[in-house]
Every structure is written in C-alpha cells, then in structure tokens.
C-alpha cells in the first residue's frame, strides 16, 4: 500500500472536486481543495502539497496553465508534480486565438495530462504512478 500523500485539487467544479475527494480519500490521501487559481496558490503557499490536481479553464480560459507556469518558475514549487485534468483538447488550443498561444509550441508545464470525464480507477492509478515518481 502506498503512503498517504497531501494532494491539492484546484478546480472550479465543486461537484467534481467532491467526487475526486471521495475517491482519493478512500486511499487515505489527505485532500485539500481550492476553487480557482488564486485560492490554489494561497493553499500552496500555506504548505506545498505532494501533488496538485489542476483544471485548465476556470475563471479565465487559461487559469490552470498560468498557475502551472507560475509554479514552474518558482524554485521552491517547481518540483511539485501537477496532474492536469481538462476537457480542453489540442484542437481547442489550435483554434483559440491569442488565448493559448503561449502553450502551443512549448512543453506543457505539467507532469501528466488527463482528459475529463475522470474515471475513478484511472485517477487513482495515475496519482499512484506520479507519487512513486
């Protein structure tokens, strides 16, 4: 059995957050939540989590990406793994003028990407894989 980890979920969909919380807590992970990028960053500053589960489109279209970039440029947070969950597709990125231009052509600043809808089993497997590093 894996050791329990401190996981921060940042997503503006409260129902989805509570479902993910149930799933993750079933494996004894400690789960903290935030509902936008700003609140998420505040949680991270309180205590750096072992893993961040991050949505892309929240208050703004690229809020998740912006936070991920911000963290990647801060030495104290750059090593925190990020699991990005999104309904966002590559085609959306290509068609979204000016909104995602800084994402395309660069490596996405995340450890892993997972498309919604989130399958609970797949979520647990992915989280375990990331935590084992």
């Amino acid at each position, binding site marked *: 059995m894996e050791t329990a980890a401190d996981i921060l979920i940042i997503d503006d969909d409260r129902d989805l957050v509570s479902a993910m919380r149930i799933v993750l807590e079933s494996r004894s992970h400690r789960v903290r939540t935030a509902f936008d990028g700003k609140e998420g960053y505040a949680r991270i500053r309180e205590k750096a989590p072992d893993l961040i589960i991050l949505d892309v489109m929240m208050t*703004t279209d690229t809020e998740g990406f912006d936070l991920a970039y911000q963290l990647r440029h801060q030495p104290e947070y750059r090593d925190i793994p990020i699991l990005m969950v999104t309904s966002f597709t590559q085609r959306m990125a290509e*068609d979204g*003028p000016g909104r995602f231009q800084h994402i395309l*052509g660069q490596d996405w600043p995340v450890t892993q990407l997972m498309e919604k*809808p*989130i399958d609970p089993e797949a979520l647990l497997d992915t989280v375990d894989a990331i935590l084992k590093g």
Partner: protein
Amino acid sequence: MQLGQELIREQLFFRKELIERAEWFIRLRWIFVFGGALAGVVARRFWPPLPLTACLAILAVVGGYNLALATATRRALAAGDDKVPRLTRLAHVQMVCDLSALAALIYLSGGLFSPLAPFFLFHVILAGFFLSPESCYGYGALILGLLAAMTAAVHLSLAPFWPVLFHDPGATAPPGPAATAGVFALYAAMVAVTTLITTSIKVSLRAKGRELLKISRDLDQNNRKLTALYEMVKEMGSHTGWQALMDNATRQAARIMGVKGCAIKLLDAQGRRLRFASVYGLSADYVANGGIEIEKSTINRRILQGSGYAVGRIQERDIFQFPEQIRKEGIEAMVCLPLRMDKRVSGVFCVYSDRSDFFSDEDVQFFAMMCDLTALAMAQLHSELNKTWFLHKAAHQLRGPLHAIQTMLDTLRREYPGPLNADQQQTLARAGKRLGLLDTMIRDLLDLGLRRDPEADQPLQPMDLGRHLTGEAGTGWRAQAETRGVHLSMEADGELPLVLASGTMIEDLFGNLIVNAIKYTPSGGRVSVKLSTETDGTLRCEIADSGIGIPEEAMDRLFSEFFRAPNARAFCEEGTGLGLAIVKEVLSRLHGTIRITSRPAQGTQVSVWLPAHSRNPTKGRQ
C-alpha cells in the same frame, strides 16, 4: 569575398564599354588596314614620292598583329571573372602596337609635319576613356616622345628625310628648327589639353556611374525586399491556423531582414506579461524565461504604449529585464515594434541581430511596414477564429457539468462511498451509458458546427489516404472491430492518387462511415474497406459490411441530422444520428460524392469518390 565581388561588379560596370568595344577595335583596325592600303595607292597617283611599298608593309604588319589580337580578344571575352584585367592588358598591347605603326607611317609621310600626325590625338582620347588616367598621361608622353625622336633623328641625319605628304614633292630637308619647335609645341599643347579634358570627363563620369550603381543596387535590394514582403503577406493570408501564421511571420521576417532571430511576443489575458508566441532563430534558453513582466520592463511598457524601440548597441543599455540572457544569446542590436490589432496593442514584434548598428533607418521603416501587415493578418484571422472559438467554448461549457456527473456516477458505481445492490448498480450503469451518448452528441454537434463554418476549416493539403487509413486511425478501428467480434479488412488497390483534405476531415469522414459499418454489423460479421482508383483518376473508397442493412424507406433521410433508422435504434442504443450529417458536410467541402446501397439483414455498401489532387509521386505511373 563580398567586397571582392562588389569590386568586380563595379569594374564590370565601368569596363562594360571596354568589353563591348573590344571587337569593335579589331574591326576598326581591319578598316584601317584595307582603307589605308587603298588610300596609299590612290595617294601615290597624286603624290609620287610616297614610299608605298614601305607603307603597305607596315599595314601588312598591322593586319598580322590584328589577327593575333582578334584571337586574344575572343579568348579574353570568353574568360570569366578574369575578363576585365585581360582586356585591359590587351588594350595596352593594342595601344603600343598601333602607336608604333602610326609613328612609322607618320615618319614615312613627313614626320612632325605629316598630315597624319593628328591621328595620335585619337589614341589619347581612347586611352583617356578606356584606361586609367595614369595610362592616358603615359601614352600622351609616349606620343610626344615618338614625335620628338623621329624629328631629332631626321634633324641629326640619323634617318633619311621623307617629303611631307601633299606638300612639296621636291623637298629634301625638313623645315627649319623654328618651325619644327613651333609645331612640336603645338602638338605638346594639344596632347596635354586632350589628356586633361578626357581624364577629367572620365573621372566625373566614373563618379556618376558609381552613384548610378549604388542607386541601382539599392533599388534592386528594395525590390527584392518588397517582393519577399509580398510573398510573406500572401502566405499569411492563406493561413487558417493562428500559430502557423505567426511562425510564418517570424521565419520570413528573419529571412527578409537578414537577421539572427525574430520573435512575436503577445500580451496575456491580464495584460501583465508578454509571452513568446513565436520564435525564430533564438535558443530555447532565451525563451525559457516564461515571458516578460510588463511592470519590470520599461522598454516593453513603452512599446505597448505604441512607440517603437530600436537599439544599435545593446551593451550600452541596462534597462532590460534579462540583460544576461541577451548577452549570452549574442544579441547586439534589436528593433521591437508594437503589434496593433483592432486599434489595440496586443503584442510586440522584434528582430535581433548579432551585429552592432545593424539596422538603418530604412530597415526600421521597412520592419514597421512588415509589422503592421503581420498585425493586420493576425487581426483578420483572430476575428475568424473567434467565431470558431464560440463553438468550442459552448461545447466545453456543456461538457463540463456532464463530465462532473459522469465522474460522480462512476464514484458511486465503484462503491467508494459504500456498497450498492444489483438494481442500483444496473440503474447507474444505464445512466452512465446515456451520459456517454450525450457526450458523444455534443462532440458531434461541435464537429458539425465546425464543418458548416467554412472559415473554421483547417488548411487542405495533399494526403495519401492509403497510408492515413492503414496508419494510426486504422489501428483504432481494428481494435473496435475486435471488441465487437467483427472482422475488419482494409486494402489499397495499387497506386492511389493524393487527395486534398485535412487530417480531421478525413477522420470525420471515414471515421463515421467505418465506425457505423462496425457498429451495425453483428458479431461474427465482416467489414471491408477498399481503396482504388477510377479510370478518370478519381479516388474510390468502398466500405462494405454484412450488417443489419438500411430499410428502403429510411434511405431518403439518411443524411438528416438526428435521424436514425428504426432497425438501427433497435440494434444499438448508442448513436446520435449526426454521423452521416457530418459526412455530408465534409464531402461537400472536399467536392466528393457518396452512394449508399443496402439490403436489410444482408449488409450495406458505401462508396465514396474524392477528386484526385495529383498522382502520387512516390510511386510509379500506372
């Protein structure tokens, strides 16, 4: 190397006349030889003392060396870069030979007083125009020297005196010293004045020529730049992808401006950061800083307020946010200009050079033009993409809650909160299935919406369908067929033409048709996909299945949105009725045609024809 070429170009320009006249001189000399001989014979009739044999001998010698010169000239003209120096050397040889021959003829017709003596002056003029001023002075001196030598020789009785042509046939001695000195002084003055006039005209002609050359070079350069700019704009106008457009702009700008690198930086949504959106020629390290914070960058703030920025020597400035990176990158000069889209500065367009003071005022002006045209193309595409974006965003908003419900449902079904009884499980499973269908429907509606918006289309390109269908896409369908227990075969018949399409269109088109065939074929059945070429070169794709078929009365409505044949509904719950509507839209965009024939309970054959773009060049002719 470049300087050497420039010099050669310049020399070619000034010596063009020399090259063009090279053969003319040879012809002129032939005229002189034959005309001279004829004139000698005629003159002898009126002037018996003329030593005709000696004169003809001299003309024969001239003819002889002219033959040699003609060969040498042809060879020199055939030479490459070496042409001008060779022709110049030949010009000197001709000059010395001609002056010697002329001196001999002048001597035989009376020396200093001969009416032929003024012919010397023509040579001074020719030397002035075609050779250097020094050479011209040299030949002037040589002429005076030859005249002085022949006069002295006759006066000192070292050589016999020949009577002055057409003057006094009985004379036995040259005119006295006073007359001789006077005439010689006159020639000296004529030679000096002619030399001075021709060399000074030549010098000013040369200066004017150099100016002309510079103007022509500038014009040439501007013309090339404008042509390149036109090509750039034309290419930008054909882009339907945002990133492709910017990448094209940076690549072309770097090429046209002849610089090390080029970048487009765009403001983020909050207007706080400028991020690299497209970069050409700069290292990954340079762009890895995640963008420039406007608050910390005076320069970028100034550019975003609408004023351009150009710097020739970066070391002298320390107002950059990342001066160390600029130094490491070897950037010495840069020009950054605002990108104005819809009256608002949305970003910055920069060119970087590794040479100090690289950009002239004209360069900056030219880049400003390029920058405005790029912004215009971007603004145009931006408004087109905005329409498409609305569709994406709408679909995304619809799918958000749906995905949350799906995850919540799955959480329940996997019994994370607690155990469920069989009925509860079954009900939740059905709910999950219906949600999946709803998700597919939203995706299909989005596809259909995008297909109906011509501006949302991705660029078409020649595609090899055989390779595309048997590649990654084919693997997915095979897996799907296997799960359903259906045998799927795919084959391409010989050489196939390329068709104009995009990846997503092909997936929308064949994905829907092949997945339909698999979906409506009971386990143990067969689906075959066959690609072939019609005699007129059209590509034909035939998808045949041994499935449930389509009832006659449903045929007419097959391509209507949300229509599903009753037997299809009965056979398979999942289905949006949008698949064939999407197929129809794609076919209309690709100018393709479709025919569906079917017999209930026996199977369906779908034939699709797509016009050929060209023969596949990788394979031989049929």
